[in-house]
């Protein structure tokens, strides 16, 4: 009799979570951020409902500040006729011209946090899948797989439900919603091993290549288009890759030669910094900042 490996078991658990949500929620949606975790989550969803189509749409909360290669990858995913992709941009952020260079934390709040709430409310989605993992950040370690949010999308630690066995309580009142994290028990290494095993396509930015860069506050940033204010400075070509992807002016790159998934894993094993280190977004507000963002409704 075959015995299951840890990846088999993680996959089976994620599929169980995806199916349970679809069976019990009224209008589920999958948050699709174009990153590697989103790619893995989408792959798992396709497996969960095979041979049927995805029983929910994907939602990309856009900021206009993602890497160009991310938009290209997104459009390739959306080209599949079996996939429905909804793109939402916050009209207020748009009108006010909110951007990462001039507006700091407000950029994330307006485009992502508020934008997400708008999109969920506008479509009446009551369960949203996200690719967050418990190993990413300290306050995530206690996050439930089914994270309960009130009418205002707020996360109240006291109202989170105990999760026993594989029994998830998906019940909620009208207006309340759930964030569901099928990858909760995966680690960064698990994700990479699974990408390798399943040959999942990911954005090329994860692989090292010569890219135009500058340094800002100790982060190597890529000059992805001419909106990046250089103030006369010339971009330097560096061989870099990204461990996490978001808005390009907020995503720090690492010097690297890793050009294949195997090389990325090898690099990770000797790496001396964690995945979120390259994220400018975690830096404002000290070590408890992620928790604060969650209470405000950040995913």
């Amino acid at each position, binding site marked *: 009799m075959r*015995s299951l490996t840890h990846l*088999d078991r993680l996959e089976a658990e994620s*599929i169980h979570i995806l199916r349970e949500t679809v069976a019990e929620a009224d209008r589920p949606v999958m948050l699709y951020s174009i990153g590697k975790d989103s790619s893995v989550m989408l792959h798992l969803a396709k497996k969960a409902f095979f041979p*049927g189509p995805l029983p929910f749409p994907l939602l990309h909360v856009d900021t206009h500040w993602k890497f160009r290669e991310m938009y290209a990858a997104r459009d390739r995913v959306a080209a599949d006729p079996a996939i429905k992709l909804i793109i939402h941009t916050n009209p207020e952020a748009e009108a006010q011209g909110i951007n990462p260079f001039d507006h700091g934390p407000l950029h994330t709040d307006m485009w992502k946090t508020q934008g997400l709430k708008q999109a969920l409310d506008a479509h009446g989605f009551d369960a949203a899948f996200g690719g967050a993992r418990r190993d990413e950040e300290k306050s995530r370690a206690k996050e439930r797989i089914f994270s309960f949010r009130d009418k205002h999308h707020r996360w109240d630690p006291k109202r989170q439900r105990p999760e*026993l066995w594989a029994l998830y309580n998906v*019940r909620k009142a009208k207006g309340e919603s759930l964030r569901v994290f099928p990858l909760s028990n995966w680690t960064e290494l698990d994700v990479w091993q699974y990408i390798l095993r399943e040959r999942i396509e990911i954005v090329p930015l994860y692989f090292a290549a010569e890219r135009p860069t500058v340094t800002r506050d100790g982060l190597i940033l890529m000059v992805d288009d001419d909106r990046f204010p250089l103030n006369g400075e010339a971009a330097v070509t560096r061989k870099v890759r990204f461990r996490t992807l978001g808005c390009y002016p907020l995503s720090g790159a690492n010097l690297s030669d890793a050009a294949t998934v*195997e090389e990325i*894993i090898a690099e990770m094993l000797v790496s001396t910094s964690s995945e979120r280190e390259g994220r400018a977004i975690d830096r404002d507000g000290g070590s408890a900042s992620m928790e604060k963002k969650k209470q405000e409704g950040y995913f």
Partner: protein
Amino acid sequence: MNAPADISAWLAEQESKELLRFITCGSVDDGKSTLIGRLLYDTRQLFDDQLAALETDSKRHGTQGEKMDFALLVDGLSAEREQGITIDVAYRFFASDKRKYIVADTPGHEQYTRNMVTGASTADLAVVLVDARKGVLTQTRRHSYLAQLMGIRHVVLAVTKIDLVDYDREAFAAIVADYRAFADEIGVADWSAIPVSGLTGENVAARGGAMGWHDGPTLLELLDSVPLDAATDAAKPFRMPVQWVNRPNQDFRGFSGQIAAGAIEPGAEVRVLPSGRVSRVERIVTADGDLDQAVAGQSVTLTLADQVDCSRGDVIVAAGDPPQAADQFEATIVWMADEELVPGRGYWLKLGTQVVSATVQHPKYEINVNTLEHLAAPALGLNAIGVAEIATDREIVFEPYAADGSSPNRALGGFILIDKLTNATVACGMLHFALRRSLNIHRQHLDVSRETHAALKGQKPAVLWFTGLSGAGKSTIANLVEKRLAALGRHTFLLDGDNVRHGLNRDLGFTETDRIENIRRVGEVARLMADSGLIVLTAFISPFRAERDMVRAMLPQGEFIEVFVDTPLAEAEKRDAKGLYAKARAGALKNFTGIDSPYEAPEAPEIHIDTTRLSAEQAAELIVEELAKRR
């Protein structure tokens, strides 16, 4: 961590890693967080930026002076950090060369039974921490008992801070002897003790130099070698709760679920419960191609050879070895909410993919987790553990949770209770067995059906359920409605709250529990009357939504018509025909709805009567018209 010389070979090795989940029980004082921090550190799960943050944090919040405080690695929410305690279940990840580990890190404080039970529900193994300086304490017993309760079969007694007692072999031996007596008493069969130091790492991942006298395995060696529950589960008879029916088109109908126990091959004979229909597995469908075999733990989609009725909540099982179905059980219940259990109230019970309405009787006893004594208890409060009988509104497929030496039947023996109003998960439980009366009382088939009864009377049965405050006008309006219906030649019966309390329910008072039982009995009587073809009118305050919904669920769709007689409290109190409000205000009447007991107004009543705008006559007219529309 060093880069493996050959990444491909290393990755191939990683591919075959197993997964073990365990729980750590103990408090920060026992060095629990330090021990987990040490495991993460020694297996190189920490990055430099995390270590740098740890160093900064150690100086600010740490308890180890200038040394690294590993405990800070595993603290999470900021509020808890400030209080210096962990108050929830956190999950940590690390890996050895052989296995990947998921650690449920739970606090050891008495008030947090809930968290430990949550963490233990998915664990293969429990690490129970004992401070070498303090020995076996009440909490050690509590943790061991809870691990045992949740069906954890392997316990590791980690005797921590052994460095602080100078690696004293005798001290360790005394603790082991102490624990042995207790383990025998509660029946922990498989346990082993290891002297460790989280601070120095001795006997955690590496052997302790100063403890040459300990010839057993290190903690990590033990974790690497314990048999997994998954292997035991796979050897049991086949069980798969159906999660979702996959039907993309007319040509495909698959039943998706995660296999709870056993193995399955195409061609195997299976039974669909509760219907009992037998068929054969045609295909095991996955996105990676059809499988020749699938085992416990896998998420698959099965197609069957016959057109069998099967939907979410059903369980596909080995045809020759099916589990039982029943609607009355004895169970252990762990209460997890601030609001205590209300015996008799309807809760949602979720077991596997089955969701039913269930009521819990008064507990037979509560268990003192410290002394294991059985205590009398009227109800169960937060963190209380008790044994009680449970009745569900329809049969559920189940297995006893505890499996006599084998891995527990988590999927078909463990359940949660959900509050119908707040939707909070208020309890979890483990089924012991079905009550014999549930297995032996079968419904008698009646030749004269309820349809025949209704046809004889030439009407469609219904229950007009009047609800509202005392003095709202329920009885008055119900009387007028019945008179009109009688004049129209309808067969009716009016059940009035005050009248029923003189007979059927004379043994009941006005406590919350008694009021629930009052409504349950009236609901059952109304149902019998509706079965006989009558139009039933009931006039009860029936203040709780959960109980009205319970009666609604007893009746066929569309036959329960909730009539909300809506009179503002001030208005009802002004009328006070029976003088009850005056008595309640004076404190002479306890638990009076609207005064010191709540009234939960219907959210979507079929008929809403605003008595400030309609006379009783007009209201009756409107109700009769509404009823006519439902013919």
